[in-house]
């Protein structure tokens, strides 16, 4: 048993978080014209499939070489100038659409010494959400890597597709976040 101080409870970001938690351009993680630029876009939908017009999406990812900008990632891989791997987007108040411009992350190790399929970690919060939800964005054009990915394989087969962003046009991937229902997005606990 370990001593615990007791975690401070989570609370909703409420309707006014954009005062601080989103600043123009935080969803643009690579400069315009970046050769490896991809777009990840989609909607966040509630249990009635209405768009959640005030959701906050935060992403965390490795760079295209697979390196996290973090002191624990000591692998001998290049970091990119100016690429933090962190981005924030908000859903549009009218349409519920969000958009990130970033790069597809490279491979990062899994728990058994192999590589994971390329993925972006995503945290979603909003008014009416008392806790953040954590999910992962995988890519539809990475079939082989997705098949071998330990975390995807731990998800019931019928729900894996909720984690895979579909290629919609050149280098644009669509990833919707759905709450409730049979097609609810898989949310993780770790």
């Amino acid at each position, binding site marked *: 048993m*370990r*001593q*615990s*101080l*007791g*975690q*401070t*409870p*989570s*609370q909703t*970001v409420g*309707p*006014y*978080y*954009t*005062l*601080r*938690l989103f600043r123009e351009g935080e969803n643009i993680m690579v400069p315009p014209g970046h050769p490896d630029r991809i777009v990840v876009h989609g909607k966040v939908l*509630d*249990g009635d499939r*209405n768009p959640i017009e005030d959701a906050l999406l*935060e992403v*965390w990812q490795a760079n295209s070489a697979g390196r*996290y*900008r*973090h*002191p*624990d*990632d*000591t*692998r001998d891989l290049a970091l990119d100038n100016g690429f*933090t*791997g*962190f981005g924030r987007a908000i859903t549009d108040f009218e349409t519920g659409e969000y958009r990130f411009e970033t790069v597809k992350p490279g491979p*990062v*190790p*899994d*728990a058994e010494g192999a590589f994971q399929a390329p*993925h972006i*970690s995503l*945290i979603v919060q909003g*008014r*009416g*959400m*008392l*806790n*953040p939800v954590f999910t*992962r964005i995988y890519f539809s054009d990475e079939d082989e890597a997705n098949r071998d990915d330990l*975390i995807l394989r*731990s998800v019931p087969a019928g*729900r894996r597709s909720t984690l895979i962003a579909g290629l919609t046009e050149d280098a644009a991937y669509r990833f919707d976040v759905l*709450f*409730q*229902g049979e097609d*609810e997005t*898989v*949310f*993780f*606990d*770790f």
Partner: protein
Amino acid sequence: MGEPAIRHYGPKAYSDHPPFSYPDYRSTVKRSPTHDLIRIVQTLSETTGPGPAWTEIAEEDTDLTTNTGTGSPAIGERIIVTGKVLDENGHGVPGTVLEIWQPNASGRYAHWRETEFPAPLDPNFVGVGQCLTDAEGGYRFTTIKPGPYPWGNHPNAWRPSHIHFSIMGPSLGMRLVTQMYFPGDPLLPLDPIFNSAPPGARERMIADYDHEVTEANWALGYRWNIVLRGELATPMDEGED
């Protein structure tokens, strides 16, 4: 350079946090998952997080009474809010970005969505701040005590005075957004958002009045520590349950 360090963080303690759906706070009902969360083993993707990279570029902005740049101070009860960001093992969490936002002394947010509540805006108060925790996890803001404000959740609903805090620690799982409340507020027992946290845990969101923090002839002081998930001493078999 070499093999990455894989830390192992203790689980989110669900007994310390609100449920996803809490019908007394109506908008949670359709905005909450209904499937069970899927438990996964922590990899580098989960044990790292944006805190350290972001800390490199974030700037301090800790005095909300003067940070509008108008040259005039905000109106209201000036207060100091200070404390530490700790992990649950009691260790300070340094180099963490804290972002805060709040309404003014009248309970009015300087936000375009606030159109219903006829309370005055203060041209000298926006209600946002940011700081980095120091080597011991410490932080300190000077601000105005926020006023309570009405909301549409139920008839005659009022939010108790609170300051929103967002904390981005060094690991993804440490992500926390919470609210700091004030001691003795009569609205606390009536507030479904405060009450969504379990009894025994919700009280951790109430700051202490601390006369040691109070500065003579200047501002009252409140002390509030924030406790995040911490590292496990030994890895446990997280994938087995």
